[in-house]
């Protein structure tokens, strides 16, 4: 029984540790392999009211680098969206980016084919990742092969790079050469810039110089006063070294994840080791007689320690083997959850860490009980007297206390996260997402030229009730929108600007609160109309009394507010709803919305797909999405955390229960004589149980008491990340209390019950 419990606990701890170690080492590896990770800096612009963007005007960097010797080299890139890439047989998708020719001197990814110095020098060239190369060309060398990018331009493959073994925050699969950035506007923050700066340069000072340069040169070029220019572009600039980009400059808070997971896995490993020691010591008192007899027969202390260490080593090795197999079993799920790439073989890259862990475990978990055991005084043990140390007892209680505090924190956290997730799933987002099919537009030219054709088709199908063409879809990653200053009299705001058509509000069931919807003929039109619709937040922030008919300034032009819509949660619940201006355009639509009715969606989608691929976007793969599913993806990150915390709480509870079993057995066995005395005096079973369980109940109550503020603090911090969140619920605290108390009582009761049937006479005779 003991070795089995020991094995389970140790295996759980090791598996946790191994998986987290793999994950963390992969996360830390990001860009760390880059030889210039300290000297290459990313350019970041902080907006006053918003988050940080890694964006700048291309012209600023070009101009600045000419005058500033500290900038050794710079590299620019521009996001190129989700691209389609095709040869005569296959078509695949990948994230594409336009890069300057020196990309590989900044990010020296290993090249499978091609020369990194010449692969990006001509705009007809194209560099693809091994993933794209494999799906397009199989095992062939694709250099010199022609491909079509997004149904528009022909490119010649000039290189294949492998980004999977060199993890980086650069997650693009298609590199499109950009010899000269086209945009020379000092006010367009459209490029991402990396600066290779001289070692002795202070990046803070350099960023300040950049800011100054932007204002002084930019204002002159754009013929504005410096004050006006500075007001228009009131961003502050920052340069961050490459080695920090992935972990610290990322919206997903990668460093927090790495930190939390590392700490938790180390705690769990420690706890399984402590439990191992406890169980071994508890077991040791069972074996005290064996040791005592060995000693009286002349076994040396060393021989006993060696024997014990050998036993522990065997258990550790078996646990490691099982943990490795478990890791291989669990890893695919973990990889899927975190969308990362890990293989169990990478453990061998981390052999020193694994070996250190094993040796430490052996030393601590093997030596301590071995010494405890070998120190038994044979005569006392043979007479039936165990070593009873008050301090050891206290340590054990402290350990149990710690474990149940943690378990309770985990349970509460998992439940609070679940509650917030449920809140987000069920809360009215302010718009209807049901049966809203989205067709992302890939080939804009074809789509716009065949507008009448598909409009006609949609009209004929009675299961399509409404359609809308828009540049941006709420709650999804589709399309694009912008953020701009909006003026109302003297007041100024940063507002979200979305281009939509007149069908947008009806198809999403968003009512017009005041005023009216856009009124337009259903033809193709561009943003030439001065009518805008705004949301309630904008009205509130500008403190407008009677918004309909008022004018606001946007991009230097005057717009008339024709309608006001209520606020809706277009980006989920993490960010506050921003003041928003809806301007009108159905040109350059990124997404076509189709509202479907009735059942049998699969067949309807099939019909639409057939039509779309044969008549509209010919030769383009069709990948439709549903808004409800896309919106749910906003919560993926939180679902992930929930799954992790839930998994850890289960492991934690199992571990603490194992620890409790060990300690319950040990402490209750130590009280056998006391139980015998109490029984002799006439204690009933109930009274004995009360005596035995009292201390366990007290420990779990203290654990719960300690866990509440910790859990409250953690959960408040986490909930604080949401602009819209639930009030701290009390039920999780109640559930955690009931769970911990009932589990502790059950385990202790199970062990105490055995104590009720001891042979009184035997234990009364102890001296």
């Amino acid at each position: 029984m003991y070795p089995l419990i020991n094995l389970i606990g140790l295996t759980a701890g090791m598996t946790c540790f191994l998986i987290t170690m793999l994950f963390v080492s992969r996360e830390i590896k990001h860009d760390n392999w880059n030889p210039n990770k300290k000297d290459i800096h990313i350019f970041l612009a902080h907006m006053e009211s918003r988050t940080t963007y890694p964006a700048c005007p291309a012209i600023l960097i070009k101009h600045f680098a000419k005058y500033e010797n500290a900038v050794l080299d710079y590299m620019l890139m521009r996001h190129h969206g989700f691209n389609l890439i095709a040869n005569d047989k296959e078509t695949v998708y990948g994230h594409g980016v336009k890069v300057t020719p020196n990309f590989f001197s900044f990010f020296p990814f290993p090249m499978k084919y091609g020369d990194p110095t010449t692969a990006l020098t001509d705009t007809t060239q194209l560099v693809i990742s091994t993933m794209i190369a494999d799906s397009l060309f199989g095992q062939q060398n694709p250099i010199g092969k022609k491909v079509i990018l997004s149904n528009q331009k022909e490119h010649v493959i000039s290189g294949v790079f492998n980004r999977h073994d060199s993890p980086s925050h650069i997650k693009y699969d298609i590199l499109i050469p950009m010899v000269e950035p086209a945009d020379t506007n000092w006010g367009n923050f459209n490029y991402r810039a990396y600066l290779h700066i001289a070692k002795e340069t202070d990046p803070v000072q350099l960023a300040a110089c950049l800011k100054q340069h932007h204002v002084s040169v930019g204002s002159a070029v754009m013929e504005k006063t410096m004050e006006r220019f500075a007001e228009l572009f009131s961003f502050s600039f920052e340069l961050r070294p490459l080695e920090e980009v992935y972990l610290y400059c990322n919206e997903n808070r990668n460093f927090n994840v790495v930190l939390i997971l590392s700490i938790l896995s180390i705690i769990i490993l420690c706890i399984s080791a402590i439990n191992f020691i406890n169980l071994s010591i508890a077991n040791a008192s069972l074996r005290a007689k064996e040791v005592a007899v060995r000693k009286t027969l002349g076994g040396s202390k060393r021989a006993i320690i060696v024997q014990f260490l050998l036993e522990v080593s065997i258990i550790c090795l078996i646990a490691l083997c099982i943990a490795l197999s478990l890791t291989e079993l669990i890893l695919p799920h973990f990889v899927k959850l975190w969308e990362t790439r890990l293989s169990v073989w990478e453990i061998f890259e981390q052999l020193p860490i694994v070996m250190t862990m094993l040796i430490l475990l052996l030393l601590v978990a093997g030596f301590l009980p071995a010494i405890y055991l070998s120190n038994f005084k044979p005569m006392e043990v043979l007479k039936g007297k165990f070593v009873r140390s008050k301090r050891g007892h206290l340590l054990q209680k402290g350990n149990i206390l710690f474990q149940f505090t943690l378990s309770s924190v985990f349970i509460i956290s998992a439940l609070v996260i679940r509650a917030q997730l449920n809140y987000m799933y069920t809360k009215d987002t302010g718009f209807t997402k049901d049966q809203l099919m989205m067709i992302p537009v890939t080939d804009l030219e074809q789509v716009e030229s065949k507008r009448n054709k598909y409009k006609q088709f949609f009209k004929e199908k009675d299961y399509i009730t409404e359609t809308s063409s828009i540049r941006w879809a709420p709650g999804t990653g589709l399309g694009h929108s912008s953020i701009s200053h909006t003026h109302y009299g003297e007041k100024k705001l940063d507002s979200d600007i979305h281009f939509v058509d007149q069908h947008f509000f009806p198809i999403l069931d968003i009512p017009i609160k005041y005023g009216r919807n856009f009124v337009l003929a259903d033809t193709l039109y561009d943003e030439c109309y001065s009518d805008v619709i705004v949301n309630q937040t904008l009205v509130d922030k500008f403190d407008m009394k009677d918004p309909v008919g008022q004018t606001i300034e946007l991009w230097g032009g005057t717009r008339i507010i024709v309608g006001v819509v209520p606020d809706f949660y277009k980006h989920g619940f993490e960010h506050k709803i921003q003041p928003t201006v809806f301007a009108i355009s159905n040109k350059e639509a990124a997404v076509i919305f189709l509202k479907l009715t009735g059942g049998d969606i699969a067949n309807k989608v099939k019909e639409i797909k057939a039509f779309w691929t044969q008549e509209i976007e010919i030769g383009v793969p069709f990948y439709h999405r549903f808004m409800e599913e896309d919106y749910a993806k906003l919560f993926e990150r939180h679902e992930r955390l929930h799954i992790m915390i839930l998994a850890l709480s289960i492991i934690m509870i199992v571990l603490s229960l194992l620890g409790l079993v060990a300690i319950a057995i040990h402490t209750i066995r130590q009280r056998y004589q006391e139980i015998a005395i109490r029984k002799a005096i006439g204690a009933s079973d109930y009274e004995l149980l009360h005596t035995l369980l009292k201390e366990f109940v007290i420990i779990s109550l203290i654990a719960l008491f300690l866990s509440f503020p910790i859990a409250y603090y953690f959960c408040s911090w986490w909930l604080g990340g949401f602009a819209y969140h639930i009030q701290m619920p009390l039920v999780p605290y109640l559930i955690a209390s009931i769970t911990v108390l009932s589990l502790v009582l059950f385990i202790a009761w199970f062990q105490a019950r055995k104590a009720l049937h001891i042979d009184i006479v035997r234990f009364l005779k102890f001296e």
Partner: protein
Amino acid sequence: MIDIQNLSKIYRSTGIETIALNQFNFQVRVGEFVAIMGPSGCGKSTLLHIIGLLDTFDKGDYYFNEQQMNDLDEKTRGTIRKKQIGFIFQNFNLIDELTVFENIELPLIYNKVGKKKRVSKVNQLLKDLDIEHRKKHFPQQLSGGQQQRVAVARALVTEPQLILADEPTGNLDSKNGNEVMELLADLHRQGSTIIMVTHSNYDAGFATRIIEVKDGQIMAERKNKREIRIIDK
């Protein structure tokens, strides 16, 4: 009060049978002070444990206050123990984690005596046995003699009909041992029924009747001659 007829107790361990008590017959009347003597392993402790309902037996009959004790369940045995029997052990068997006061109080708690009555009873006993100044101490802080006096107090606190003492002076020096024996003699004079297992002839001298047990049977039984006590002194 106690009537034991043809009682047998056999210990079995893998293949070997040890007969602890063999067709044992034994009676005790109310108010008697009986000493049981005999060599080690003669069955005298087993007899005491069976009388005290701490152990079971294989054959024969045992009547306690004319009530048959064969095949009682553990709960009933516990009730009889706590209401009618007080134990005194050679190794005192006090609970280390409880104070002197709490140790003595314990049987009263198990007998569901009210708090007020418990305190006054325990305090009275502490005074009677001259250990009042020690009531907040833990057993480990006391001398052997004091510990045994606490144990005696614990045995007396419920005013049991029967007191069972298993070598009560075995772990004590002669001075302390004598004091404990005087205590038992006083109790006997006040009317308590006492059965005591002992190795010591001197201790046995305090009893009114002495039986000698060997190989699970009574070898001899005699009325005590009080003179022994005087000669030994």
